[in-house]
């Protein structure tokens, strides 16, 4: 690892120490001050740090709400007793509104002694008919008096074990939390989906990787069972109300409500067939095409792959491999998955797919000058008609990292937003779109999963 480069695990440890009181307040303040438009290109980029939640170290969820505004999760997972605070982009103030301390809302405060309600992980899901934004919490934040937490180690420890993923119904019209419930006891929610027509939420549990259905009418949970070991990072829905995700071995997993069964596809999703078997090709991010006929996805795997899946066609869908999302590299070494990453898939008002792929300096494959940062986050635009892709912007953080984007969304004005993981405090990027690429209500049809 070169100087200036930092893997995610190391980052979490270091940032935990910083949160323990070592973070220079001046640096945080300077960073906030420096948060301004950095780019005069047609796609100016601006960084919005979670300065009012200085414990925050990650932003795992960023979605457009049913009101067309951007919601993000200011997560604090490396901080003992850290809690998540949902935020919303305020376009009038061009700043963030901090909505609430989620742990307090669900009576599970950060000093409970248990693993804390530290984050929302790909788990915002809108409800269009009533303006509710559902959100479900995830685990990993340690108890207030321990340095780290393991759900395996503490599963049977009533004092330490995570109470469970908390599900909240947040009314975006009144800014009130209408109700909350425990979605998954003892486990976190890795990703969430809302089938609004049927009033069902779907979730993947962590660490046991169980497929969970929550009936919003009865507020009852059903556990359909385990899928694999590695969590898929996304669920998606088709016109037949089937829910899709992926297994450890790179196969599609389909839940069909009529049969109440999970099935595994015979074929594999996209991976590099030259040296990969499909193992660990689990979905990272999935964006629906505006016409609803297919989805675009990236994998959570070294050399993340882009693909297009025609889930409404055939017995098992056609999977189109759109190729690697990131640069060539030395395949003989297992690259740090924090460096090699693709996320933030979102359709713009212009009908093009936008996403962020990491890029890094590599002596052989990408010898960028030292004046550039070691790791970069590149905003790409892919034309679904021609499948041509174009680099349109580079995310810039005033002092820190900008290459690990978790999720992206387009707001009702047609501007792009990306959640980012790896700075302290963490935050979100806004990419202002050129006028000819924007449209009113560009967030519609809305994505129903986190």
């Amino acid at each position, binding site marked *: 690892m070169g100087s200036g480069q930092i893997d995610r695990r190391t980052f979490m440890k270091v940032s935990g120490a910083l*949160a*323990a*009181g070592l*973070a220079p307040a001046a640096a945080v303040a300077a960073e906030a001050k420096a948060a301004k438009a950095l780019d005069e290109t047609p796609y100016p980029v601006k960084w919005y740090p979670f300065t*009012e*939640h*200085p*414990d925050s170290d990650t932003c795992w969820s960023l979605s457009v709400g049913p009101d067309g505004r951007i919601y993000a999760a200011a997560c*604090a997972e490396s*901080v*003992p*007793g*850290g809690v998540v*605070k949902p935020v919303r982009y305020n376009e009038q103030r061009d700043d963030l509104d*901090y909505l609430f*301390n989620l742990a307090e809302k669900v009576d599970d405060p*950060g*000093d409970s002694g248990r693993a804390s309600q530290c984050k929302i992980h790909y788990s915002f899901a809108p409800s269009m008919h009533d303006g509710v934004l559902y959100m479900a919490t995830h685990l990993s934040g340690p108890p*207030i*008096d*321990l*340095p*780290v937490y*393991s759900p*395996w*180690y503490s*599963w*049977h420890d009533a004092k330490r074990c995570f109470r469970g993923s908390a599900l909240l119904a947040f009314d975006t019209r009144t800014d009130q939390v209408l109700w909350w419930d425990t979605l998954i006891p*003892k486990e976190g929610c890795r990703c969430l989906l809302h089938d609004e027509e049927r009033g069902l939420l779907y979730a993947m549990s962590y*660490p*046991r990787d169980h497929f969970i259905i929550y009936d919003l009418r009865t507020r009852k949970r059903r556990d359909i*069972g*385990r*899928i*694999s*070991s590695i969590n898929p990072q996304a669920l998606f829905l088709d016109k037949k109300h089937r829910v899709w995700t992926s297994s*450890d071995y790179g196969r599609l*997993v389909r839940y069909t409500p009529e049969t109440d*069964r*999970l*099935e*595994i596809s*015979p074929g594999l999703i996209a991976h590099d067939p030259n040296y990969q078997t499909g*193992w660990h090709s689990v979905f990272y991010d999935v964006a629906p095409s505006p016409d609803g006929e297919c989805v675009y996805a990236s994998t959570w795997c070294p050399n993340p792959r882009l693909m297009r899946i025609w889930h409404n066609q055939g017995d098992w869908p056609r999977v189109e491999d759109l190729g690697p999302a990131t640069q060539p590299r030395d395949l003989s070494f297992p690259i740090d998955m924090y460096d090699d990453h693709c996320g933030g898939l979102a359709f713009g008002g212009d009908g093009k797919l936008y996403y962020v792929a990491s890029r890094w300096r590599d002596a052989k494959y990408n010898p960028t000058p030292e004046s550039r940062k070691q790791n970069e986050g590149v905003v790409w635009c892919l034309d679904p008609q021609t499948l041509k892709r174009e680099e349109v912007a580079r995310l810039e953080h005033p002092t820190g990292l900008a290459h690990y984007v978790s999720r992206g969304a387009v707001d009702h004005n047609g501007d792009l937003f990306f959640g980012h993981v790896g700075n302290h405090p963490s935050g979100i990027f806004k990419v202002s779109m050129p006028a000819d690429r924007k449209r009113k209500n560009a967030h519609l049809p809305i994505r129903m999963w986190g």
Partner: protein
Amino acid sequence: MTTMQTKPKFDPNSPEIKAYLNDLGNQFVREGTMVAFPTCLPGMTTPIPLDESRITALDINSDGHVYGGTSGQQAHIFGAAFHHLTGIVLDAGTVAGCTSTAAVCCGASRVIAFVNGPQGGRAVALPYIRLAEDWIQEWGLRPPVLQELGECVSGEQVVHAIAVPTRNTIVGVTTKHVFTVDVETGQINVVGEAPGRGHLAMGRSAVFGQDDGTQLWRFDVASGRLHRAAVHLPDGEWTAPLRWAHNRDSGLLFTADAAGQLFSFDESKFRLLGKAHLAPVGPIAVTPDGRLFGFCGAEMANLFCCDTASGSVTNLGVAASVLEQRRYGYQFGDAVAGRDGELIFGEDDNGGHLWLYFPKITSIRA
């Protein structure tokens, strides 16, 4: 809204925190090696479907081949081999309408499996599969055919069954009756009334099952007689279905109560060993050196080892495999001692695998 930065309430250099971190570093398979083997010929055949592959029954024959059954949307019967040039789990098929496997017993001439459906439990025979092929180079065998032997006791679910030492007879129990199956003819006989709670144990000459209250019934193999309330269980919490393990050399039996207390049983008296750190105790099996291994705890089981001489119990952590398949193991349905001192656990979970556990070698005793 402003937020103060959280201050940790611990001393990172304290012995407690250091011990905690050390424990965390050893939370998976603290000793020995686990190998999760899928229910297929890896890379060549498809495994048993995700929700039909909860492995709930295992047995091993004199060739060291393992036979088992699954539960889920459909019950499958399979054979498996891991020595020589094998390395295969072969799905022998399903029994129509049956969704759980209560027991699989390796008889002298064939395998008898006991599967349950909404109508009750039935016996199914499977010829031994010629698993000892060259599964590296070239192989060839026909799919085995399951033979229905019929209902065991009309309308009653089979709870468990076990082969007697000669392997000519299987003794089983439904929810209300004890029955036998002649391995060769497939004839099923109801022996008498007794509750079916938990697994059966095969002693030197008798089969033991959990009776009403805190007692065991005994079925004498030679005489064919069932003795109710034949053995009193020792002090303990006997509220949960029993699991058993058998030491093939000493003939000793081992079981656990609902609190996780481990006992040996020599067919007349019990001896309290140690206590597993979690309860309930699930599948257990004994290695030839006398160590008892098993899983304890619900939802996320931990492997443990009991030195049956000293009674000491060691927590070996959560199961994880990094060989053959990369997988965590959370729930297990049955266990057998393998041919050469390895243990084989059946994973009672979606996408269940056979987990081979190779215990850490212990020092030679002078």
